[in-house]
């Protein structure tokens, strides 16, 4: 298997070069901290509860492409597939803080948890309020009684949207945390991969799949899923993902949901739309109403091919924050 074909300069410098390009792409809407891979909105209002997001790089536009109005106030960026270090998180948190404290929002991985926790301890020493909500939406990662062990995947996007809206409107860190916790309690996702991605610096694919194989439940860094299967039709893939997702929360007749289908990298939107067709048939059959659909490329795993499906059960409060306008390089709505 030949090395993945990528248009890069020095593979060791992908993260700093990417961040330089990312800052430029925001046309003045954010800036980078000196000497640290952290991005901060230029226009955080005074007295706003701050929302700091972050995680490993290589999943662009997640996380650092989601800094903007009614989205994250800042992002702490790690190396490819590696959580940011405590000092990056610490400085980013101080830069976004407007006196009302900082909500940390990130995917639930051992590396992120430890590094964000270390930063939290440093910030608490400085008297800054920090609360943490970890995204744990991947139903493939652990059984329902151990949701705290689940990975964060494309649920990140709705979590940032909801927490971004809540932190723009609500006046207290604890209220924003409450809304974010409500959101994550109502979000479930699962993915499928048909081809692997690679880390630019090693040039090696992170797993191997045969020409006729798919992996159901694949994680966002190539972590093993729950089943390796033969290729099957889109409808059958959708059926399997939806069965797992629906029964997990569970989503019930009469529920209203937001639906997000995320491209892991190299899958065509045509495939995702065909999958959406089946998902809507299933939801209609189950009597579940879709309030809003998002289909696109938000949490990628380098050149991995595959997608994930995310459902968020809505109440009026979540719907309100979901429907707020937002603007960032990676996700905007009117």
């Amino acid at each position: 298997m030949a090395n993945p074909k990528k248009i890069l300069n020095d593979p060791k410098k992908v993260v700093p070069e990417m961040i330089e390009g990312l800052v430029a792409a925001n046309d003045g809407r954010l800036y980078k901290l000196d000497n640290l891979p952290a991005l901060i909105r230029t226009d955080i209002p005074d007295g706003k509860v701050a929302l700091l997001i972050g995680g490993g790089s290589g999943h662009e536009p997640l996380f650092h492409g989601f800094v903007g109005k009614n989205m994250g106030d800042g992002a702490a960026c790690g190396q490819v597939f590696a959580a940011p270090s405590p000092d990056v998180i610490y400085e980013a948190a101080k830069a976004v803080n407007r006196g009302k404290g900082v909500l940390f929002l990130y995917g639930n991985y051992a590396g992120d948890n430890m590094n964000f926790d270390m930063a939290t301890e440093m910030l608490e020493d400085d008297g800054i309020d920090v609360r943490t909500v970890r995204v744990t939406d991947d139903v493939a990662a652990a059984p329902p009684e151990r949701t705290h062990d689940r990975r964060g995947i494309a649920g990140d996007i709705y979590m940032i949207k909801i927490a971004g809206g809540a932190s723009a409107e609500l006046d207290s860190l604890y209220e924003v945390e409450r809304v974010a916790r409500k959101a994550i309690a109502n979000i479930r996702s699962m993915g499928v991969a048909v081809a692997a991605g690679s880390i630019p610096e090693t040039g090696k694919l992170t797993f191997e799949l045969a020409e006729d194989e798919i992996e159901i439940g694949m994680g966002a860094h190539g972590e093993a899923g729950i089943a390796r299967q033969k290729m099957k039709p889109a409808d059958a893939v959708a059926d399997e993902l939806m069965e797992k997702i629906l029964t997990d929360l569970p989503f019930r007749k009469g529920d209203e949901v937001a639906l997000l289908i995320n491209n892991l990298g190299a899958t065509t939107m045509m495939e995702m739309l065909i999958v959406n067709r089946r998902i809507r048939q299933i939801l209609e059959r189950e009597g579940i109403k879709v309030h809003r659909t998002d289909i696109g490329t938000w949490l990628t795993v380098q050149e991995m091919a595959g997608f994930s499906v995310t459902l968020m059960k809505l109440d009026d409060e979540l719907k309100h924050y979901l429907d707020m306008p937002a603007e960032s390089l990676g996700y905007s709505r009117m």
Partner: protein
Amino acid sequence: MTETLNAGSSRAMLEAVSRFVIERTDMLTDADLAIGDGDHGIGMRRGFEAALSALETQSVDTPESAFKVVGTAILSNTGGAAGAVFGTLFRAGSKAFAGKDAIDGDGFAAFLESGLEAVIKRGGVTEGQKTMIDAIGPAARAARGNVGKGLSAVVASAAEASLSGVEATRDMIATTGKARSLGERSLGHPDPGAISISLILKAMQEFTATA
């Protein structure tokens, strides 16, 4: 044979450790590709390259500061799980040398013990979950058991014990970190972080045996 390490030889040893690990990047990459996301090699390289340049540019006048400088460099530059746990090992472990001009066998055992304790607290894991502490734990116990024999023997015993620790991780099912989702499929593969511990101790053993 080195039976005590002052500030200068601590620094020299940690430089040797850094170079030893950096040279084994690919091996660590492959270990992490088998059960993780394939970045452990480049992560450790980033950390120890930063350690090397920190040791060169920062003032290191005690063994404690030498180990702390290394830990801080790893913590800030490695990222991921490894940055947190290896950074913590060296930073928290360095406290065992507080107020001391030199490291002896007892000091070295104490370094592993306090490093282990801090990593356990940070990572929320216990031995048997297929992590780097499955190499530190046996190493710390072996070091303590051989304390009377002098530093080089203590380090050698720790290095040896860590290798058995690495072997033992083959038979463990990961319940934390990226390998967790593999479940039984993680069996047969050693833990990458545990391998890194064994490399670090091996380099220390070589240093204390010959320097």
